[in-house]
Structures are given as C-alpha cells and as structure tokens.
C-alpha cells in the first residue's frame, strides 16, 4: 500500500494508556484504543449489542467492556467475547514511531455503510 492509503490521525501519546479516543468522519465515529502495552486498535465506535459507544468503556488487556451493558469486545478481532460472538467492524492501524495511521480503504468501507 502506498502512503496515501494511510491517514495520520495523531500520536500514541494523544490516547490515554488503557484508554481510547474517538475520531469522527462525518456521521461515523471510530474508536481508537491504546492498550497497556501500547498496541493501538481501531473499531467502529458502535457496540454490536445496542450501539453503545465502545470508546467510553474500560480497556483491559486486548479487550474493552462496553459502558452501557458490559459486553466485552476483543480489540484485535472486533468480536464479542461470548459463545456466539457478534462483530464490530474494524480498521487497520499502522504505527510509525509515535505516529498513528488508519487505513483509508477501511475507513471508506465504514462510511459507505454507516450503522447508525
């Protein structure tokens, strides 16, 4: 992929460790999560249960717990942690030093079929 396929959104330091920030593209929100090990993941900010804002949840390990009714989502796969998992759409992340990039093709996918 060429560099113009990646969109710079900020630095790792902008996101609290074991926390998340949100980016907004038009009507669509994407949660950008930073784990305690400084891995960064991005998911559509919409819980597969009833649409809760995942970026407001508690981040633990590679997982986030939704703030509305406690569904647990695996950040790496976007799947909920339960016997029959539900899925959140995700977006590839690239780290270059401190800089955080999101995949433009993935973002395009997200905004072409908004859930909310």
């Amino acid at each position, binding site marked *: 992929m060429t560099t113009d396929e990646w969109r710079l959104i900020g630095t790792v330091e902008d*996101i609290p*460790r074991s926390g998340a920030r949100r*980016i*907004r593209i038009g009507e669509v929100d994407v949660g950008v999560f930073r784990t305690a090990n400084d891995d960064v993941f991005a998911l559509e900010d919409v819980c597969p249960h009833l649409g809760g804002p995942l970026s*407001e949840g508690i981040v*633990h390990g590679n997982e986030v717990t939704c703030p509305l009714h406690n569904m647990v989502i695996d950040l790496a796969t976007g799947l909920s942690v339960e016997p029959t998992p539900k899925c959140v759409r995700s977006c590839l992340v690239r780290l270059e030093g401190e800089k955080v990039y999101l995949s433009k093709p993935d*973002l395009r996918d997200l905004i072409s079929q908004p859930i909310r």
Partner: protein
Amino acid sequence: MEDMKKKLVVIGNGMTPGRTLERIFETNPAAYDVTIFNAEPRVNYDRIMLSPLLSGEKTYEEIIIHGDGWYIDRDIMLYKGFKVDRIDRRSRIVYSGDEECAEYDKLLIATGSNPIIIPVPGHVKEGVVTYRDYDDVEAMLWAAQRGEHAVVIGGGLLGLEAAAGLAMQGMQVTVVHLMPTLMERQLDPAAGHLLQKAVEDRGISVLTEANTKEILGGPSVEGVLLDDGTELPADLVVMAVGIRPSVSVGEAAGLEINRGIVVDNRMRTSDPNILAVGECAEFEGDVYGLVAPLYQMANVAADTLLGDRTGKPFEKQVLATQLKVTGIDLYSAGDFETSENREEIVLRDARRSIYRRLVIEEDKLVGTVLYGDTANNSWYLQLIRDGENISDFRDTMMFGPGYGEGQSADVAVASLADEVEICGCNGVCKGAIVNAINEHELSTIDEVRTYTKASSSCGTCTGLVEQLLTLTLGEDYKPTAADAVCGCTDLGHDDVRKLIEVQRLQTIPDVMQSLHWKSSEGCAKCRPALNYYLLSTWPGIYEDDQQSRFINERVHANIQKDGTYSVVPRMWGGVTSADELRAIADVVEKFEIPTVKLTGGQRIDMLGVRKEDLPAVWSDLGDAGLVSGHAYGKALRTVKTCVGSEWCRFGTQDSTGLGIRIEKFMWSCWTPAKVKMAVSGCPRNCAEATCKDVGVVCVDSGYEIHIGGGSGLTVRQTELLCKVATEDEVMEFVAAVVQLYRLQGHYLERMYKWLARVGIESIKEAIVDDDERRKELYDGFVHSQSFSQHNPWAERVNGVDAHEFKPLAELDLVEVV
C-alpha cells in the same frame, strides 16, 4: 438441687481445657459447677492463630474461641489474670495468691508450656520477648511500630512464623539459627535451602550456624552479638527456641512428674481427683505440642470427668504439622528421622521448588515431609496411621493416590477413603464431613465449620473441605466464585481489602502482581473495585486511576442510551434560588438541551447534553455557584430534606438546615456504592428518611439516626442506630458510620447489604458503644475529605482530562473518499 452439683476447678484456660468444657456442657450441662483460673487476663482464644494476628491477616476478635458470653451462659466463674500457685490436696482447695481460692471435687490442670529463654547476658532487657501468647504479639506489634530491626532467634516453625509476621509489619528481620539449615529436624539440607530461599524472598535475612553470645543495649535492647563477632542491630529480639511443659503447680503439690505431669490413658494424674491435659501432660513418655493430640486428650478427660468409660482411651498419636506462612507450603507428619532400618524416597524439583520425602520402614510409611505442593498430605497421613503395607504401590506413591488418573487435587480428594482425616486439629474425617453436608444440606464452608468443627482451628485444611463441598454438591457449590471479586482472582473482597492494607499494596499493578491475579490487567469488574479499595485505604497517597473508572465517573456525568449525557447539579438539601434556576434555564437554552426534569432526589436533571458541550455547560453552571451532584458516582448523592421547624407547624428541628450542613460536609466522598440520605423534621417523615442509606428523624428531644434503608431494587426499611442530642453529634455519628462502611463495604455493595452482612450490632459496637473508635472513624473521614472535596466540574472546565471531551480528530469526508 443446685448445691449437689460437683465442683470442677480448672487451672489454665487454653485451647485444651476449652475443648473439655465444651464436651462436658454438650453432654451433661448439669454435671459440674465450673471455676477457671487463668494467668492470662483473657478468655479462651485460638493460640494457633497468633501468627495471622501478628501478620495482620486476622484480628483478636476473629480468633476468640469462647467470648465472655459463653462463660456467663454456663455460669462458669472465670478468673482472668489469676495464677494458681498452690494446691492443697488434702482439703481440695486451690489458691491464687492470698486473694482467691476455690474448693474442688475434681481438678483439671492445663497449664500448657513455658517458652524457653536462653540465659545469655542481656536476656532481661526490654524488647526481648518470647512467642507464646497474646501479650507477646502485642509487644511485637508495639516494637514494629517504633523500631526498624528485629532479630528472631530460632529457625523452627515458630521462629519462621514470627519472622514472616514481623516482615509483613514492615520490619527488617534477621533469623539467627544455630544449625546449618532451617528446620533441620524436618528437612534435609537441600530442602532446607529451598525453604531458606523462600524465606529470603520475603526480604528476611537468614544466618545459619549462628550462636547468640549476648544481647546488647542499655535498659532496652539495641543489638545482638553473635559468637563470631557479628553485631546485628535490633529493636526487638524474639526468642523462639522451644518450650518446656509448665509443671510447677503440679510439682509443688507432689504429683508424679517426669518431663510433664504424668497421666494415664484416662488423663488421671497420680492423684485420682486430679486430671491433667494439654502440653503440660505426659503420656507414656511423650509430651505433645500440637492441638490435634491435645484435643484427643481433652475429649478423654471430659469422658473421665463425666464418668463415661465407653469412650476410647488415649493412645500414642501420629503427629502432623504445617507451617502457617502464607505462600510457603510445608507439611510434615509421623516420624521422619533417618535410621539404619529405614529407607527414604525423595523427589526434588528445584525449579518448581517442590520437595517430597517419604520415610519407609518394613514396607510401611512412617513419616513424610512435603514442601511446595502439599496436596496429598491427608493420604500420606492416613497411610502412616493405618500402617498399611505399601509394597504394591511403592513405585508410584510419590505421585499421590490418583496417580495415572490425572493429578488434580480433586482427584486426590475423591480417592481418599472415608476414614481419612481431613481436619487434623479437630480430628474430623472425610466421611463425617460428607455425611454432614448431605444430611444437613450444607453449602458453605462456614456451615461445615459449625456442624463438624472441620477447618475451624488452624484453617490449613480449608482447601480440602472446599474440595469436599465441590465433590459432594457438584455444580451447586462454587467454592470461591461465590464471593470472589471476579474471574481474575479466587480472593473475596474482604481478603483483597485486608491484603492491600497489611501488605501495603499501593497501586493496581502491585495488587495484581502480589495477589497473583490470573489476568494481566484485570477486567471491568475488578479494576474499579481495586481503584476504590486503594483510594479508601490510602487517602492522599493513592492516585486515582481514571482508566479504571466507569465512563460516568470518568467524565462526571451520566451516559444515556444514545451516548449523550445528563447533568445534575447539587441543590443543597433540595433548596434552590432564583439565581440558580436562572442559570439552569440559560444553559438549557444555550446548549439546546432537550429535556429538563425534576429527579426523585429533589433536584434538576438536564438530559441529552452532547459530550463535547459538557465543559462549557459546567462552566456556565459554575459561574452561578452550582457544583457537581455526583448523580453518576459511587458517592454521596442527595440529602433530601423536608421544610422542618422553619415553616412546618409540626417541625421539631431545623431539618432543612441540618440536611444542607450534612451535604456540604460529606459531598464528594467516594463510597463502595452510592449513598443517599435524608433528614425529616418530625416522625411524619416527609423526607422519607427511613428508606435511605442514612436517615435522620428529628424529634423534640434530639435526633434519631437510622441506617441501611433502600427503596430501589429492594425496598428495605432502615434500622435505628442511636439517638443523639445535638446537631454536632449527628455530624460525628453520621460521618463515622459512613467511614466504617467505606472501610468495610464491598465494592458495589449498598449500605443495606453491608448492614445485613456485618449485622447492626457490630456497627453499634463501633459507632455507639466505643467513643474512641467513633472519633477515630470520624477523623479518618475528615482526613479523606481533605483530599477529595473539590468540584470535579470546575477542574475539567480548567482543562483536566481535556482529551475526554473532544474527538482526537475530525476527518474530512472528501479527503478519505
């Protein structure tokens, strides 16, 4: 007739005679009038538990076996702090000094042992203690508060337990041991080294082959000088070098004495009216220093005193002991001395720190030492006791009874025979426990303790009893899950709180590391709980971890189903003003807030605020003096009031003013779960005070304080805590009771659940009966408020956590597409 009852006098009030008396009163309460003399000025407590008491893992109340009430209910005369110094056998009277004496028909001597003191120069200095009773532990705790260095002389069971406890109290501890390796009687040198390393890992220094020459210092101890010239600094010296049966009263009375007071297999001494039990008694040349055999003696003595000759007489006992230092598993049983006609099988796995030694004589197991993994101890003990021929499974016995079927502890327990003893202290076997569980439908450890006494003394068999519960009840028993904080740990809330305190754990990663959390970072259940426990245990020291708080508490507003927020400012005591109402109206218009509603808590809720607007909304509200109402927090919510004496024709006191005063004093404190209060001006109770966490009902003569009500998921009426005369007292009592709840409540446990768990009596004892404790709690609350009482909204208006309120980036659609 009362007078016809025979008189039983008991000398010494330790664990052994305690058990004898229990059995007598259970079997025939009318048999004796009992009088007890005890040199220690206290009731019967669990001496075994002194180590957990020293380390801070237990409190004195938790280790009492018979409280004062027990004696009163049985009309027992207990002389606390009275040492018997003379027995007149001819007139059958015992004397304690010139002050007290008592006549007996039967006399039970249970004077225990005296700790040995090595008479090196300086051994009488202040700060040199032994390790035997509650006073010794007090002295050690006192020294631990003031001094830094402790030297423990003796590296046996007691010495190591003392050292571990003192280290947990924050002292620098050195163990001085005469022999080349620790516990050389139980362990061979290699295993001794494993143990030494585990002890040293706790920050304790160990000096072996070290002989104490002198204890240095002025009136108080300052150091210890060893034979080789080494000088160790010391503010405390603990001598734990052994015990000697305490026989002097018996000896003076002319009873037959050897090492101990000689008894027959019915516990009778050379005088048939006098019995002896416990560590002071000697049977067939042996004295015993562990409760399991002593409780056997206790039962036999009770039978003898009741004239029952059907019971089993006392026999020589196989002994088993366990080191009670949390995290070090060491067990030994039987006779593990080596000799010519004995063979040994040893398993050693230094990397996993496991050591097992089986001592065999003529195809029978006679002794074992297990270190690191003690799961199969009951099975080995039973083999020793039964004297079973082991030649058939000699090759595999090292791996336990379930070898070949997988090695889980459950399997080991399942394969035990019914006669195998599970609780060594109380002599309860597997069959008895399983029967009790089935027969009485027991489902908790506590119930098993009540019915069978198993696991109620030293507690080291608790794990086995839990496995029996699992085995018997299957799915229905959730051993630890029931009260574990969450799936990341087996520890319950109380355990975690206590360990945070005694191990001085001060960060969430510390807690998870030290308490062996199963997940690397916890989960959304335990993280907020730990954050609260650390915050309430270490006010001013612990730094609140925002990432371990629910979103509501992190952004100080309530999240709504559509991701917007609601904002509820405080209206002190439900009272507002034109200025406040105007500011609210302005904010609602300016930020186009869709809904404004009166809450059930006498204030106004603005719902549907966009997250990014929150700081600006707060800023405008703040200008009018409005602060956060914590409607989102595990914190003080509202203090509802009624109009009270200022307006109401029935009002007896200024309930509105008092409500405001309480709210201004207590707002912004974090609590286990939300706390709601109310003050009503008379018993008509228009503020509904008797269904709140704390409710005050004013009456002519003062104020009733009620606690533990609720009207949400469950409707519960409060219980009356007490009545006080002045507003100032209300403030003190209310703050103290909330502080007690802050320290004892489990995270998310409302006050009414806490009350149901600990009981109103224990709360009254702390708050109403004990002025000092109440003051201490009140001061604790005030101290904690000094760090927490500020308006979180104002801080965020000024830029705290700004990242929470604005997106990281707003991307241009065109650019992405």
